[in-house]
């Protein structure tokens, strides 16, 4: 199916079978179904295979530095709240190099969506452990197996009271699209951790493995219950999928920033009040 977000697909540099392919397709469909316009959407990324996604989708693009996508995305939204801002990057970029940017942006609650292509491995650098790699996984660097605990982004995001916390498996297109749509529609910081297999370097966490090691949360599950969400967040034998936590009562960064209290326009549309400046300078008669 073609969409208004189609762009430059002939340039795609992903391996055949990569989880990024269905993710890209599902994201484009979700945005179309939400009525989003490429002209009003900014795709931000860091560096990595996942971070190439903005190259292949129509819209504005900021392909920045490894780990720094969230800082950039927060500032774009803070400068122009009228734009839809979506970050796509991998587990290494967002949980590793950019780990503290993730924590600190959750606390600010900018109205952005962060889609983590979590394949539990470093793809672009060819197969080293990532923060989410399971304990014991052997790689060319972790020769005797991973000894770190696996990073648990869902538990961290719930603990930080993120506005929207979710996890999906890209092999389940229907559920993934539903959660993408809810995440982009959510007013506030939305995290979507996507199990997104790397077919070249992760021979452990395959499509089949994810299917066997996850389950969908049922209809009765209430994501606004924080204690329950935390219980779900620490389940790691079989990972729960869906919207795990949401707090709809939070103000966004812009809603609580004084620069937008009276004037809702994007910053670029505003002009310096030269008269007020002159008065301020003239008022400096004393220290």
């Amino acid at each position, binding site marked *: 199916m073609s969409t208004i977000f189609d762009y*430059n697909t002939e*340039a795609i540099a992903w391996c055949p079978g990569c989880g990024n392919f269905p993710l890209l397709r599902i994201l484009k469909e979700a945005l179309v179904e939400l009525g989003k316009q*490429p*002209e*009003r959407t*900014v795709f*931000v990324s860091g*560096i990595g295979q996942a971070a*190439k996604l903005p*190259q292949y989708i*129509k*819209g*504005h*693009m*900021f*392909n*920045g*530095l490894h780990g*720094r996508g969230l*800082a*950039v*995305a*927060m*500032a*774009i*939204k*803070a*400068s*122009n709240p*009228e*734009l839809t801002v979506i970050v796509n990057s991998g587990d290494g970029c967002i949980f590793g190099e950019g780990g*503290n*940017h993730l*924590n*600190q942006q959750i606390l*600010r609650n900018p109205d952005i969506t962060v889609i983590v292509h979590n394949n539990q491995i470093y793809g672009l650098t060819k197969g080293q452990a990532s923060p989410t790699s399971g304990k014991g996984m052997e790689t060319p660097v972790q020769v005797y197996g991973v000894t770190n605990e696996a990073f648990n982004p869902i538990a961290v995001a719930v603990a930080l009271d993120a506005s929207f916390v979710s996890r999906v498996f890209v092999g389940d297109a229907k559920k993934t699209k539903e959660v993408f749509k809810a995440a982009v529609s959510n007013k506030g910081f939305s995290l979507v951790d996507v199990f997104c297999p790397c077919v070249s370097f992760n021979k452990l966490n395959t499509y089949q493995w994810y299917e066997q090691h996850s389950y969908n949360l049922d209809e009765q599950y209430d994501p606004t219950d924080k204690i329950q969400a935390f219980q779900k967040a620490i389940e790691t034998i079989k990972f729960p999928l869906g919207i795990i936590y949401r707090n709809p009562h939070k103000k966004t960064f812009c809603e609580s*920033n*004084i*620069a*937008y*209290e009276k*004037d809702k326009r*994007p*910053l*670029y549309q*505003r*002009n*310096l*009040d*030269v008269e*007020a*400046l*002159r008065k*301020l*300078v*003239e008022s*400096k*008669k*004393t*220290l």
Partner: protein
Amino acid sequence: MDDLSIVIVGQAGQGIQTVEEFMVSILKITGYNVFATKEYMSRVRGGMNSTELRIGSGKKRVRAYIERIDLLIPLHKNAIEHVKHRISKLNTAILIDPDMIDTKNYTEYNCIEVPFTKIQKNIGLKFINMFAIGVLSGIFKIPKETVEFYLKIRFELKGESVLSKNYNALNKGYDVGEKVKYNVPEMEKNTNVANEILLDGSQTMGLGVIAGGCNFISAYPMSPSTGTLVFVAQHSKEFGIVVDQAEDEIAAINKAIGAWYAGARAIASTSGGGFALMTEGLSLAGMIESPLVIHLAQRPGPATGLPTRTAQADLNLALYAGHGEFHRIIFAPGSIEQLFLLVQKAFNIADKYQIPVFILTDQYLIDTSYNVSLDEMYIVGVDHAFVKTQSDYKRYAYTENGISPRGIPGLGSGFVRVDSDEHDEWGHITEDLRNTRAKMMDKRIHKKGNTIARLESPIPLTPFGSTEFDILIVCWGSSFLTVKEAVEDLNHPKLACVHFSQVYPLPKETTSLLEKANTILLIEGNSTGQFVKLLKLYANIEIPTSQLYLKSNGEPFSVEEVKKFISLHLKKRGKKD
């Protein structure tokens, strides 16, 4: 005598800062020219700090640090020792409290007894600074209305009780001060001066940021840059500025670049250690051709170094920071007026040429205040350089001057695609080395480089002193007014100084001007001669080591030491003749 130097010394927490702000303010309102600077330890309580107030007659501008102390007010038993190297038996009067300081050690000095300790018991420990302000006001016979007027401005919001306690302490001091046997030299007052404005470097930097049209600041607090963030934050409501205290400097610079991308004007304000973390982001700005203004407030390093002291040792850092090759401009203002002008220029230049522009300040400039006339504070105006895009928009279109029109997302029908990878005209990632990479390097480095090279320095190189000079003193950044005063004092028929407010790229007239001198002396606040090397590299001017005055102990240059250094060379020259 037409200028006087007062130094107050005490512990952190005693309110020395308040004395400084109070005294420069009310002395200026009275019609004197004023100057203040401070040196302090990196601690919130204790230690030993001092502040210098220079008072000039209504006719004499005072704008530089001097070592000489005419009137010393020690507020702690160790205070005199702290500035012993600066006082003289002949010229310094000390307001001494025998209950605080053992006067036996200072019998040869002109000591005037003032009972700070006794009064302190009476008015409360917290108010010793207000008492000292009272004493000084009494000595200078500043009209009580003036003192009360300023007291109200400062304490109005703190309630009647705070106001009256402070007033009480101040009043007691005033009574004591009036009776102090210290003859204030007769100095003319000037009502024009009374109406002038009074600014320190921090506030001026903040005003420049606002005047530059900045509407986004994300910064992590670090001395001596923090004051800028504070000032801008305090005016953020009035001017609609988004303020974000960043989680670290890496985030701060990435946010600044993100904000510029979305059409805001942003600044990354920090000190050396913080800027070291920003170098990756600086390189990003170079690659994606983002405008960026960086305030690098220098302090001595390496590492944590001396957090509250001054230095000019991050020139090389600013010059060479960032992996890969890209252009930058570095301003190093030497005065309050230059600072205000250059920050505004930095925003317009960064916007137009899509490059990082640095403002190099330092603790001395940031913590220095003096009065300036409104005419000296030039408002430049905001020249936005972004364009409305068409549907066929290419962010990195090849152009003759190397500058591709910069669109912003949401304005127009085009797409703004920027990429930290090497990219083509549309911003697509590319590894087409022979064609696209070569053309992009030509655009970013050569074409844009030529365009930038044609720019005039906002403040032309202007020699001060003799027009017939054969000895030329070169300085840059915050030492300007110190060197200028030294040269004016020496008033030698063959002596002049020149200040570089733009240190990179060097102003075009650099070589021709410097070649006019037989002898070049250079003064800078580092130990390796960073600007000396820059002059050699980019202007082919060689200055022998014996003609350098390098200082890196964390103190600012004083007028006296600069005069001494120049005099030594004037003597040598005399011998040669």
